[in-house]
């Protein structure tokens, strides 16, 4: 079971995909070109300050709006280790799983932490913050399979005999 620790960035409710990655950047050729603009309508400085291993903690309905998969991709590309939110929008959830971005639903932690705090995550068990444990609910088996495979692309490559 994987355990990791990271610094927290806090966002509120209903963080939509137009905030996570505005439409005007969708025509950039690569995710790397897009990532400096992640969250720019709301927090223009954020993308530049996120370090690999950091954790985003948000309120309800994170990722609502468009089906643009570039949204979870840029979050992953910025090095965010996982997103913990009270709830996730549906399409964003699937897209994140397919890209190997770990999402964790927990309704209490977002109200407890402050930006800059450190938390510890024991995947599929609990989050550890200031000595208190916040239990995490397991993902369904079929989603765990995709994550285990390393994402949907790897799973398909395996199916096409391109990967072991």
């Amino acid at each position, binding site marked *: 079971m994987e355990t990791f620790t990271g610094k927290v960035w806090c966002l509120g409710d209903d963080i939509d995909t137009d905030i996570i990655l505005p*439409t005007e950047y969708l025509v950039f050729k690569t995710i790397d070109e897009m990532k400096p603009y992640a969250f720019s309508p709301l927090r223009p400085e954020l993308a530049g300050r996120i370090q690999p291993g950091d954790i985003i903690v948000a309120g309800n309905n994170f990722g609502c709006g468009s089906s643009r998969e570039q949204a979870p991709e840029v979050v992953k590309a910025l090095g965010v280790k996982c997103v913990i939110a009270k709830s996730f929008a549906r399409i964003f959830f699937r897209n994140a799983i397919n890209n190997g971005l770990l999402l964790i639903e927990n309704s209490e932690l977002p109200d407890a932490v402050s930006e800059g705090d450190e938390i510890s995550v024991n995947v599929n068990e609990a989050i550890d913050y200031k000595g208190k444990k916040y239990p995490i609910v397991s993902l369904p088996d079929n989603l765990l399979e995709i994550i285990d495979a390393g994402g949907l692309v790897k799973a398909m*490559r395996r199916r096409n005999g391109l990967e072991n």
Partner: protein
Amino acid sequence: MGQTIIEKIFSHSADRIVKPGDIVTVKADHVMLDDIMMPFIVSKFREMGFTKVFDPECPVIICDHLVPASQVDDTRAYHISCDFAKEQGIMNLHRSDGICHQLMTEAGYVKPGQVVFGTDSHTTTYGCVGASSTGIGYTEMASILGTGELWVRVPATIRININGKLPDNVMSKDVILKIIGDLTAAGATYKSLEFAGDTIDNMSVASRMTISNMGIEAGAKCALMAPDAKTSEYCGIELDEYQQSLFGDADAEYEQVLNYRAEDFVPSVAVPSNVDHVLPISELGDIAVDEVFLGSCTNGRLEDLHAAAEVMKGKHKADFVKFIVTPASRKIYLEALRDGTLDILSDAGAIITHPGCGLCCGRTGGIMTDGEVVVATNNRNFLGRMGTSKVKIYLASPKSAAASALAGKIVSA
């Protein structure tokens, strides 16, 4: 036990009785691929190791977000779309015919009871003809292109009954805005919304389309209505036994049932910057308007243009208001042209553009700057969607939008 519409569709697809929570693999009857996502779809397709599309008649490739091109990079996605279609023998290619969600039903692709996926969140739109349709990302789309199928988790259903006669100045847009306001933006996450009642029965397919289109704004997986005689006429088919069975059974299990009286709906807006912050226009006070946008897959159809023309006939928009009209498809543009609607709107001072997503997706088509206020008939008013984050977007019906363009402030018809 009885079933909801979505349970019937997925049962039909899985060839066994399914219930909410079940994971099933379904075959896609059609998939919708829009230009702005094509470069990533194709790249993932290739990265996955696929060389041939599973069934070239299944995909429909539609160029709508980036036509006409407003940035030099737009043509890249356009060429990738056309080249991939050619390479794979995909004949269903629309280069400049209008918005994807309009064309999928208008051009006859989606039929009642089908299972459809699209790389755009408003793919819920085709629920208006009783199809299961939902938005997905480009990686999953690539996997469907290669395999023809996708896993889904059967959703629970929220049933929404609407009965009675809508007031004259109320359109289906006002209905769905109120419902989203009540449900909230995540109130239907993972759920299927099922709409019924005589108000729905009396609505045109175009009006139903507006409702299904906005289902995603409450987080819904799909937003369906039972196919009926109007559906049959719209789709140009006779409903077969399966399609005729696609209504919610009296003993079906619904997670939630909401009942509305049509007479209670009023002209409404979603205020900046969330779709679920809905208020009656009468409660707004004086809000001056800089721009009005009539268009999008939500409200760019002929009946929407007619509704606006009726309000504006013989009148002119207020000075210094930009009034932008973007019909949802080439077919609609032609019809509006031939029946004099575009004439009326032009006389009213409209800037009439070519059919496409236009301002809705916020790349071009009427972008705004700090302090500007827009009344728009599309489906989203998120922060920064149509320009800077200090632009205020109010979502409204075509009638309200037209009335606001005349008045120079937000009013109902």
